[in-house]
C-alpha cells in the first residue's frame, strides 16, 4: 500500500519538545544552541524512567503505520486486497511497511525511541515472542484495550493465549499473535532419496547421516535450530538448563566444523534447496509449503519429527510512543475475523493463524491446504509436538546470543 509518510521520528520529537518548552526569544538567542543540542541528545539517550502512553489522536488522524515481515500479507506486489478492504470499511489508511527482516536489527533501529517512549515511526509492529518479552519487560509497549477488539475476544484460539503467550505475556495484555511459525525438517525429495536411499528423514539423527555431508542447512535463528536439536536429544525446551544449551551448542559446533552442516541462513534459503546446495535441514514449515505451491509440485517435503519442533509467534505490540493506538487496534481486530484470516491463508500466507474458524473456511475452499497439519496444527499436535523455547534472563540472553553467533561464524 502506501509507503511510510515522510516523518522522521527524531524530528517529530524535536518539534514536540520545541513546542513544549516555553523559551523566550531572548533566552533562545542566549543559550538556544546549547539547549537544542541538549534536547537532541536527550531525545537520543535511553532513560530509565517509567514510560506513559502517548496521546491518542486516532479519532482525528485516520491513519496507522504497521511494520511487518515479508511474506505475511496478501498481494505484496502492492495490491494488498485485505488491507484495501479494511481501509474502505473503516476509513483508516494503513501504511503497511515490509521492513522487518530480523528481530535484532529492527530492535537496534528503534531502541532509542522505544526507551524514550517517543514515536518509533510505527504504530504497531509484529515481532517474535522473545523480542516481545524484552519489550514488555522493559515497559516499552502499551496495554491493549480488548473492549475495542470484539473479534479478538471472540476468535483468539485459547492455546495462543495460554501455552504460546502465557510465559511472556500472561493473559495477552500487551501483545496479540499475528502468525505462528513451526520449525520443521525440510528436504528435497528426489535429492534426499538419491543421497541416502531413504524416502524422508524420520529422526533428527537422519540429518547427521554422512551421506548428507555438506548438504545440511539450518536456520540462523538460534531458538529454532538449537530448540529442534535439543528436542531431538530429549531435552525439554520449556525448562532447559545452561548446561543443556551448551552441550547442544557443542554438538552444533562440531557438526559445523566437520562440514556436515554447511549453510546457516535466515532468508532466501529455499533457493539453496532448489539449486542443490542444500538437501535437508531445519526450515520454517510455511516457507516450504509456499515454495511447493509456487513450484506447482511437491518437490520439497517437510516433516514434523516425533521428537517435536519449536513453535513461535510473531506478535503485534503497540509502542508507548504510538499516537494511533485505537487505529492500530482496529486493524488488528479486523484481521481476527475468520473470513479475513482464511483469505490470507488461501492467498499464500502459509503460516499458522491464531484465528478460530479460519481452518473450516479454508477446508471448504482448498481441502489439502486446510488439512495440512503444519498450517493448521490439530489440538493434539499443539499439545504434544510443538513447544516454545523458554524465556531467557537478560544475562542468558547476552551469553547465549554471543555463543550462538560465535558458533555460526566459526569463532572457536
Amino acid at each position, binding site marked *: 500500500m502506501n509507503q511510510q509518510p515522510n516523518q522522521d521520528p527524531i524530528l517529530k520529537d524535536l518539534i514536540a519538545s520545541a513546542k513544549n518548552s516555553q523559551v523566550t526569544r531572548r533566552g533562545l538567542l542566549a543559550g538556544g544552541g546549547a539547549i537544542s543540542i541538549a534536547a537532541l541528545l536527550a531525545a537520543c539517550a535511553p532513560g530509565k524512567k517509567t514510560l506513559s502512553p502517548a496521546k491518542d489522536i486516532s479519532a482525528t488522524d485516520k491513519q496507522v503505520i504497521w511494520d511487518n515481515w515479508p511474506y505475511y500479507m496478501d498481494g505484496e506486489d502492492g495490491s494488498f486486497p485485505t488491507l484495501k478492504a479494511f481501509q474502505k470499511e473503516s476509513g483508516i489508511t494503513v501504511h503497511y511497511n515490509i521492513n522487518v527482516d530480523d528481530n535484532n536489527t529492527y530492535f537496534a533501529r528503534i531502541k532509542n525511541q522505544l526507551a524514550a517512549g517517543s514515536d518509533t515511526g510505527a504504530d504497531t509492529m509484529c515481532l517474535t515472542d522473545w523480542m516481545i518479552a524484552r519489550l514488555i519487560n522493559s515497559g516499552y509497549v502499551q496495554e491493549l484495550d480488548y473492549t475495542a477488539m470484539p473479534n479478538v475476544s471472540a476468535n483468539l484460539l485459547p492455546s495462543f493465549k495460554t501455552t504460546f503467550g502465557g510465559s511472556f505475556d500472561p493473559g495477552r495484555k500487551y501483545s496479540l499473535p499475528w502468525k505462528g511459525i513451526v520449525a520443521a525438517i525440510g528436504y528435497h525429495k528426489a535429492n534426499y532419496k538419491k543421497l541416502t536411499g531413504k524416502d524422508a528423514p524420520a529422526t533428527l539423527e537422519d540429518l547427521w547421516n554422512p551421506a548428507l555431508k555438506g548438504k545440511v542447512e539450518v536456520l540462523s535463528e538460534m531458538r529454532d535450530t538449537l530448540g529442534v536439536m535439543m528436542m531431538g536429544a530429549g531435552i525439554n525446551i520449556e525448562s532447559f538448563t545452561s548446561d543443556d544449551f551448551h552441550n547442544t551448542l557443542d554438538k552444533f559446533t562440531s557438526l559445523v566444523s566437520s562440514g556436515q552442516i554447511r549453510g546457516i541462513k535466515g532468508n532466501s534459503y529455499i*533457493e539453496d534447496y532448489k539449486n542443490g*546446495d542444500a538437501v535437508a535441514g531445519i526450515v520454517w514449515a510455511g516457507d516450504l509449503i509456499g515454495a511447493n505451491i509456487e513450484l506447482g509440485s511437491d518437490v520439497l517435503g517437510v516433516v514434523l519429527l516425533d521428537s517435536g519442533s519449536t513453535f513461535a509467534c510473531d506478535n503485534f505490540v503497540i509502542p508507548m510512543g504510538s499516537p494511533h493506538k485505537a487505529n492500530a487496534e482496529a486493524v488488528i481486530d479486523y484481521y481476527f475475523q475468520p473470513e479475513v484470516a482464511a483469505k490470507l491463508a488461501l492467498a499464500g500466507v502459509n503460516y499458522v493463524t491464531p484465528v478460530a474458524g479460519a481452518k473450516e473456511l479454508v477446508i471448504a475452499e482448498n481441502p489439502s491446504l486446510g488439512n495440512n497439519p503444519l498450517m493448521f496444527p490439530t489440538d493434539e499436535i499443539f499439545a504434544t509436538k510443538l513447544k516454545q523455547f523458554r524465556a531467557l534472563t537478560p544475562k542468558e540472553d547476552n551469553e547465549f546470543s554471543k555463543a550462538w553467533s560465535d558458533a555460526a561464524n*566459526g*569463532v572457536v
Partner: protein
Amino acid sequence: MAFAAFSNDKPTKDSSTKRKSGPVVLALLAPGLIYLMLFFMTPLISLVITSLESPDPSGAIGSYFNDVNFSNYATVAVDYLPQIMRSFGYAFAATVFALIISYPVAYFIGVKLRSRPLTQRLMLTLVIAPFFISFLLRTIAWKQLLSDDSGFVNILHSMGVLAPTQFFLGTDAAVIFGLTYNFIPFMTLPLFTNLERLDVRLLEAGSDLYANPRHIFTRVTLPLSMPGIISGTLLTFIPIAGDYVNASRDFLGSSKTSMIGTMVEADYLQNLNYPSASAMSVLLMGVILALVTLYVRRSGTEDLL
C-alpha cells in the same frame, strides 16, 4: 601520507608558487572542512568513545555505559584473531590476483590500442560494464553460477579437482574469487590511466640498447607504472580487508570464511555488542593505516609520486 599515493601530481616544493592563505582560500575550503568534521570526525570520535564502553551491570542485552575500558580491544584481538588474519590473507590474495589479471589488460588497452581510440574506449567500457549492475546482485548471480549442481562444479568434479563430496561455495577459494572479481576495476582503472601515458619511445630506446623484452619490462615499464600499481593495490586492498558481503554465509562464504566485517556485523546487529563492534572497526582502521604506510615507505614510491 598514504593518500598522496592516489594522486599523480608531483608535490611542488617551489616556494614561489606559495601564496598567503587569505579569507577566499578559507571560504573555498570551508565546505570541505565542514563536511569532513561532520561526516568523518564526528562518527570517528563517536566510534572511539563507543569502543571504550563497558557493559551495564544489569546485564541487559545492548546496554552499555561510558567508560575507558581498553580491554575491549584485547578481547576482540584475541577472540577474533583467526578472522583478522583471514581478512588480511584474503585481501592480500585477492589484490595479487587482481593485479595479475589487470596489468596485462590495462597494458593492452592503454599501450597496444593507442592507435585505435575507438576500440580502446570500447574495451574500457567492457571493463566497467558489469559494474553498472548492483554489487549485491552480481554476487548473488555468482552464488547461483557456482552452486553445487552448476556446470562449473560438475567440471571440477569430473576433472578430479574436487572430490565428489567437496563443493566450491563456502570455501576460501570461492570468497577470494568473489573479492577479486568485485574489485578488479579498482585495479584496472588506475593502471590504465598510468599506462596510457607511458612514453613508448623509452621502450624503443631500451631495445636500441640491446635490452631484451624481459629487461625492458622490469627496468623500464614496471618502474614507470609503479604509481599506478600502488594506487591500484591500495584501492583494492583497503576495501577488501573490510568487506563483509562476499564472505557472508548468505553469499559466497560459510561459517569457515568469516572476516572482520562479518564479526562487526554480528556484534553490531545481532549481539548488540556495540563496544566490541566499534573496537573491531578501530582496530581494522589502525592495522590498515599501519600496513599502508609501511607499504608506501617500503616500495620507495614516495619519490615517484
